């Protein structure tokens, strides 16, 4: 059967669709052929799949072939059986007949003959050529067709259908399609069953020696082909899958080792998508196929079906695994295969898969998940090809062009070298090429990294190529090899590529890297004698590869560095783009980095920087610092070349903020120097930069700084510098953020001067201006270095920045500063509330009471009000004030303050007033103190005595003096407390006089009552009276009996002194000496404590001894009124109404003024004689007066003329009040008589109750 392989192959290629045979009984085919073919393919066909389930196949093409056609006729029965899939699936019998007899006699027997073959699925198409207008004929045809149906159709199956050529046929075509489908389905079922049967039989014999894979293959593929023809691709695919499984089992069977294949020309190009690339007859071997070709063939068939099923992603995924597993198989046979065939095959396979899947895939058709998976697979294929391509490139000496990145190192250094049985040897005429290669090796200097970073390049090779290649050379005995490399540590460690030409070997072994003389052509004559040099290995590999590679594109890509790089870039870009579209973002970004490296090499810094930035962001975002440290310097260099100052500085700062172990101190210093240099260079614009990762800050440990409202302060902030060296900051400022109010940006505090940050911990002092009340946390540290404006958000918890989370800005929650709400910080109060002596130097006490606030260095401004002056000649005494009746807690506090070393045990001193202010001493800063200020209240007024006639008008304000105090305190005297303290000054006595007795001899006893007004004992030493005109002293010469003195007057008590006086009979001539009023002089002493009230005047204290002490003299004017001797006018108070006075009730008060005698005298001449000026005086608190209070009334000059002055009054208060008084200001008191005299007091009744607004209470 295997012999039929070739035939099978041709049969398979020649037929590609289901065939329906047409038995043209009545020569109708030429007429209907066009119509039949028009209605192709079958729109909807229900077929049965392998698992006997109905499947809907759409657009199934069917080919109609006449049974008389050569294609069907010429087959022998065996052929038919073998290639059954190409036999017709249905037989359509075309008949026509218009005559019933003819049908019965001729046609029917013939038809019976045709359809008697059971194996065929058949049906009859009756074609009616009769025109519908021809009734006769139509009838007849109908009869014939009816007969036909009766004869050939059965109840089970309709086998007839009728085509009217001239009539409407819509129904017919549906019917035809159904019938064909039915036939196909039946045939298909039968054939599948048959094949499956056969296959089962063969499978059972599988482990018998006669078993032949080729037979199995033909059957299996036939079945697959049947399915494929019927568009049952899924089933066909399954057949191929089973076939592959079976093949892999047989191929791996022990004892059946066969030739692998892969030696044909162009075998290096993968044919895994080209099923017909090699005829199967070529790859057949004994009873099976060569693995190399056959597996590719199977995969090609599978992928063809998958593409038909529109599953390119599955092609990718199967393809990737296929490539991997096939590469393994190639590895097993590597020693016999051409040099690097595996690598080349993988590259071509990947590229072929990529092309095919890309062309079959259309975006958006499949689910996003599958699409992403497809892109990922594409990426995988690209990277696989990329790795293999790099490997080839390395083998022929392009290793220097490959970036030694972690990605490339991971790919290449874990990929073993090719292991040919014999390493290709140098072709004899390659000396010039070797020279050239050597030159490039020598020229290739490894690029030194920016900042002078020195890293051992990552390896790109799994082991030293030089050694591997030489070991595999047939001519060289392996024994020599270790000798060659002994002591050459460079080889075991890394890049053999770079180490070899430069590490001169001191050994006598003819080490090829030794000198250039070895490269002289003469030595090439016997290259087999000695180990090959690297350049020779490259050249040899290149030559060998040229033999292996048949693909022109690949050959070209490896022909020069530029081409290599071009291809390399293409592959990398392809991989990156596809990964970016898939889930595997990291892969994509990392590959971007590889593209960037190439761009970088060619000076396309902007492109490179873009990609590098992405890579850095990826690594930084996930804190892969080791990897970041590899890429970041490259980015920095790009940015430097692009003059991207901000980016460059940012990169330097990021470099600095990486783990310290990743860079040497020298390198870190280089970063810092770059930053500083750049910052101070002439950049156009200031560059803002976030250095949160490098400079962190925290408040001082311990409780937050507490400040009172309005106080400035100093804030200590710990700043951690990650710079390796000291760095000078032009400025440094800090913002505070209020915790209660996040809207405001916070206030910036500036550090005083240029700051030098040492590496590590620094304590920076910030001056804190007064802040609003609230608590504050640290916000942002900003600063400036040259043109660099940096800011840091990073808060460290009292340690250096944790490199682990250098991207996470943790907001400090602990307040650093608390500013309390405004409160009283100090209190100033008057120490004494009782009255002091007026016109005497008195101590006024001011208590200064700090309330939990230091008054250190406080300044008190003292500004006395009018009528008060400070006695400058005396110092201001300040002493500790201990409140006697304060509670126990407070006194304890005082004690503790005393104990503290801050306040020395000093508690009094004398301060001098300077420009109206005094400065507090240290000791007084925390304790309550009292200031004794010597003052003198000035009053020009003479004290006036009062009598029942002229009562004393008490004016509280008269003795009141004020002292305005302003205390400036706090750290910067920013706190100001102002208070005006009132002090009450008074005369020592209130004097009241009355005449207690009038003696017959004209002597009057004048009682002078002294009412002490101060809160201290007054000692009256002496009292005398200076009398006014009209009065003379009695016997005692104006003094009371001296034995009474000293008279002690207790506080608030009264004492009285009695004088005897008499009226002066004769008016004294020396009128000038006479006083207008009498003066009472009292000489007294005062013994008092200034803490209690009035006290000895300040100057008295200082006057020295007791004997010299000055007695105080109090003078008070007393009005003595002489009786009216010469009355001219009389004023009579008229009777008040009898019903009494009531509050609020209007009354009329009347006075009668009567002239007693005619007016004459000098003073009267000037005035109008017929008018009298009057004035009504009433206490406005008691009376409301309506009417003219003061005015002229006419009163004739004649004696006895009289006038009544009346005025309306309303009493305002109830009780005994003084009624309004009428006085005549223009008339001397002595000329006015009161008759009848007005009452001293009148009774005013309270107002009547008003019930208008009262609500009765129940």
């Amino acid at each position, binding site marked *: 059967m295997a012999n039929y392989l070739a035939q099978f192959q041709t049969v398979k290629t020649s037929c590609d669709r289901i065939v329906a045979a047409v038995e043209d009984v009545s020569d109708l085919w030429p007429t209907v052929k066009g119509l039949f073919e028009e209605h192709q393919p079958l729109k909807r066909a229900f077929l049965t799949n392998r698992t006997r389930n109905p499947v809907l196949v759409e657009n199934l093409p069917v080919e109609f072939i006449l049974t008389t056609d050569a294609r069907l006729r010429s087959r022998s029965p065996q052929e038919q059986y073998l290639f059954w899939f190409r036999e017709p699936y249905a037989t359509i019998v075309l008949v026509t007949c218009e005559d019933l007899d003819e049908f019965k006699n001729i046609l029917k027997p013939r038809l019976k003959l045709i359809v008697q073959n059971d194996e065929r699925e058949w049906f009859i198409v009756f074609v009616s050529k009769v025109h519908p207008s021809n009734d006769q004929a139509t009838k007849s045809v109908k009869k014939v067709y009816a007969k036909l149906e009766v004869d050939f159709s059965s109840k089970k199956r309709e086998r007839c259908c009728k085509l009217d050529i001239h009539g409407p046929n819509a129904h017919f075509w549906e019917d035809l399609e159904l019938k064909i489908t039915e036939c196909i389905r039946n045939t298909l079922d039968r054939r599948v069953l048959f094949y499956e049967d056969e296959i089962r039989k063969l499978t059972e014999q599988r482990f018998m020696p006669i078993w032949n894979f080729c037979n199995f293959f033909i059957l299996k593929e036939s079945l697959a082909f049947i399915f494929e023809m019927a568009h049952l691709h899924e089933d066909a695919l399954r057949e191929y899958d089973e076939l592959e499984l079976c093949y892999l089992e047989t191929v791996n069977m022990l004892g059946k080792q066969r030739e692998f294949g892969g030696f044909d020309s162009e075998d290096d190009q993968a044919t895994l998508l080209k099923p017909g690339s090699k005829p199967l007859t070529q790859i057949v071997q004994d009873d099976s196929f060569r693995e190399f070709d056959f597996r590719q063939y199977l995969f090609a068939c599978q992928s063809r079906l998958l593409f038909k099923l529109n599953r390119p992603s599955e092609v990718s995924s199967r393809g990737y695994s296929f490539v991997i597993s096939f590469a393994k198989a190639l590895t097993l046979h590597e020693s016999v295969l051409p040099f690097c065939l595996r690598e080349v095959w993988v590259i071509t396979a990947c590229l072929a898969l990529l092309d095919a899947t890309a062309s079959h895939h259309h975006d958006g058709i499949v689910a996003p998940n599958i699409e992403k998976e497809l892109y990922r697979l594409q990426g995988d294929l690209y990277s696989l090809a990329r790795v293999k391509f790099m490997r080839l490139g390395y083998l022929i000496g392009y290793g220097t062009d490959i970036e030694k990145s972690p990605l490339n*190192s991971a790919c290449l250094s874990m990929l073993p070298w090719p292991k040919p049985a014999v390493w290709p040897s140098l072709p004899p005429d390659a000396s010039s090429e070797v020279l050239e290669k050597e030159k490039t090796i020598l020229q290739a200097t490894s690029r030194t990294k920016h900042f002078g970073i020195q890293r051992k390049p990552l390896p790109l090779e799994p082991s030293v190529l030089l050694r591997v290649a030489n070991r595999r050379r047939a001519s060289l005995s392996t024994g020599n090899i270790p000798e060659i490399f002994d002591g050459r540590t460079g080889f075991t460690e890394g890049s053999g590529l770079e180490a070899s030409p430069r590490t001169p070997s001191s050994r006598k072994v003819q080490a090829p890297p030794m000198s250039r003389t070895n490269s002289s052509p003469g030595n090439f004559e016997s290259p087999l004698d000695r180990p090959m040099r690297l350049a020779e290995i490259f050249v040899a590999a290149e030559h060998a590869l040229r033999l292996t590679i048949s693909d022109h594109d690949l050959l070209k890509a490896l022909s020069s560095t530029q081409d290599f790089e071009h291809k390399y870039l293409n592959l990398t870009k392809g991989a990156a783009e596809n990964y970016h579209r898939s889930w595997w973002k990291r892969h994509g970004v990392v590959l971007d980095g590889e593209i960037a490296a190439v761009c970088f090499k060619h000076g396309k810094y902007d492109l490179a920087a873009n990609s590098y930035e992405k890579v850095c962001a990826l690594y930084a975002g996930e804190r892969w610092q080791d990897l970041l440290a590899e890429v970041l310097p490259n980015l920095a260099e790009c940015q430097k070349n692009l003059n991207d100052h901000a980016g460059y500085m940012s990169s330097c700062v990021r470099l600095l903020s990486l783990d310290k172990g990743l860079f040497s101190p020298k390198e870190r210093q280089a970063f810092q120097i770059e930053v500083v240099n750049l910052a101070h260079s002439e950049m156009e614009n200031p560059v803002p930069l976030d250095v949160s990762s490098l400079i962190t800050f925290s408040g001082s440990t311990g409780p937050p700084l507490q400040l009172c409202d309005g106080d400035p302060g100093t804030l200590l902030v710990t700043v951690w510098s990650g710079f390796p060296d000291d760095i000078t900051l032009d400025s440094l400022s800090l913002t505070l953020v209020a915790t209660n109010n996040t809207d405001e940006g916070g206030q910036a505090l500036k550090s005083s001067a240029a700051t030098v940050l040492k590496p590590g911990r620094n304590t920076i002092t910030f001056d804190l201006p007064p802040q609003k009340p609230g608590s504050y946390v640290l916000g942002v540290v900003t600063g400036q270095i040259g043109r660099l404006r940096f800011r840091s958000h990073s808060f460290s918890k009292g340690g250096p920045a944790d490199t682990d989370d250098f991207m996470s800005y943790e907001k400090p929650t602990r307040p650093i500063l608390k500013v309390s709400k405004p409160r009283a910080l100090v209190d100033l109060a008057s120490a004494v509330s009782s009255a002091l002596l007026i016109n005497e130097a008195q101590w006024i006490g001011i208590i200064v009471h700090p309330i939990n606030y230091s008054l250190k260095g406080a300044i008190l401004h003292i500004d006395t009000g009018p009528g008060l002056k400070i006695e400058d000649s005396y110092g201001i005494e300040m002493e500790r004030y201990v409140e006697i009746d304060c509670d126990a807690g407070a006194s304890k506090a005082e004690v503790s303050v005393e104990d503290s070393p801050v306040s020395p045990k000093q508690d009094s001193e004398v301060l001098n007033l300077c420009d109206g202010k005094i400065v507090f001493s240290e000791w007084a800063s925390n304790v309550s103190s009292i200031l004794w200020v010597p003052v003198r209240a000035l009053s020009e007024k003479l004290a006036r005595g009062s009598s029942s006639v002229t009562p004393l008008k008490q004016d509280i304000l008269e003795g009141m003096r004020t002292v305005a105090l302003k205390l400036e305190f706090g750290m910067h005297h920013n706190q100001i407390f102002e208070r005006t303290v009132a002090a009450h000054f008074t005369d020592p006595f209130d004097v009241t006089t009355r005449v207690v007795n009038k003696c017959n001899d004209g002597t009057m006893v004048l009682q002078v009552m002294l009412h002490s007004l101060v809160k201290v004992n007054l000692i009256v030493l002496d009292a005398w009276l200076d009398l006014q005109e009209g009065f003379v002293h009695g016997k005692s010469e104006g003094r009371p009996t001296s034995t009474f003195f000293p008279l002690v007057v207790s506080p608030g008590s009264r004492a009285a002194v009695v004088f005897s006086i008499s009226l002066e009979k004769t008016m004294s001539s020396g009128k000038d000496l006479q006083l207008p009023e009498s003066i009472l002089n009292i000489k007294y002493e005062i013994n008092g404590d200034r803490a209690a009230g009035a006290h000895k005047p300040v100057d008295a204290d200082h006057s020295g001894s007791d004997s010299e002490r000055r007695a105080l003299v109090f003078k008070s004017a007393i009005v003595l009124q002489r009786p009216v001797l010469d009355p001219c006018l009389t004023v009579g108070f008229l009777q008040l109404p009898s019903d009494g006075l009531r509050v609020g009730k209007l009354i009329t008060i009347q006075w009668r003024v009567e002239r007693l005698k005619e007016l004459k005298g000098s003073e009267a001449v000037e005035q109008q004689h017929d008018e009298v000026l009057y004035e009504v005086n009433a206490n406005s608190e008691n009376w409301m007066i309506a009417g003219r209070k003061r005015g002229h009334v006419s009163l004739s000059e004649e004696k006895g003329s009289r006038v009544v002055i009346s005025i309306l009054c309303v009493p305002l208060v109830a009780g005994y009040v003084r009624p309004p008084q009428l006085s005549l200001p223009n008339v001397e008191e002595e000329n006015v008589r009161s008759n009848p005299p007005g009452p001293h007091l009148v009774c005013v009744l309270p107002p009547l109750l008003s019930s208008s607004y009262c609500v009765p209470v129940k």
Partner: protein
Amino acid sequence: MIVCVAVVGHQNNPLYIQSFTEAEDALKLHHIVHCSLDVIDERVNNPSKSGTTMNEAFLGLLYPALNYKVYGYLTNTKVKFIMVTSDLDVRDTDVRSFFRKFHAAYVDAVSNPFHVPGKKITSRTFSESVTNIVSSYSFN
């Protein structure tokens, strides 16, 4: 031979990475581990696609690479263990038991009250026990 083991935090940040190769090429292993996070992400985000149920910590083979294999393991706390081996014939059961031991060592290390969760593991004991576990497994 196991060439590298790594612990990766739930934010995909490396917590511990240790390579067991002679040459100074740890960086390439960093790269392999880092890139394998792509696979873990994909599996975790598309649980329906991967065969393993989410209840299982062992993620199986992440990479069908040519010359090394990467295995993953995901703890309940979303900490990933990644192991790179250069052996190509590895049985899943061996890897499973390796990860179980590794997980136990990890739990011991992070149970240290002085260890800050989410920070790099610096414990020397952990490093030693990891070395022990690694040396006890050679899959061939």
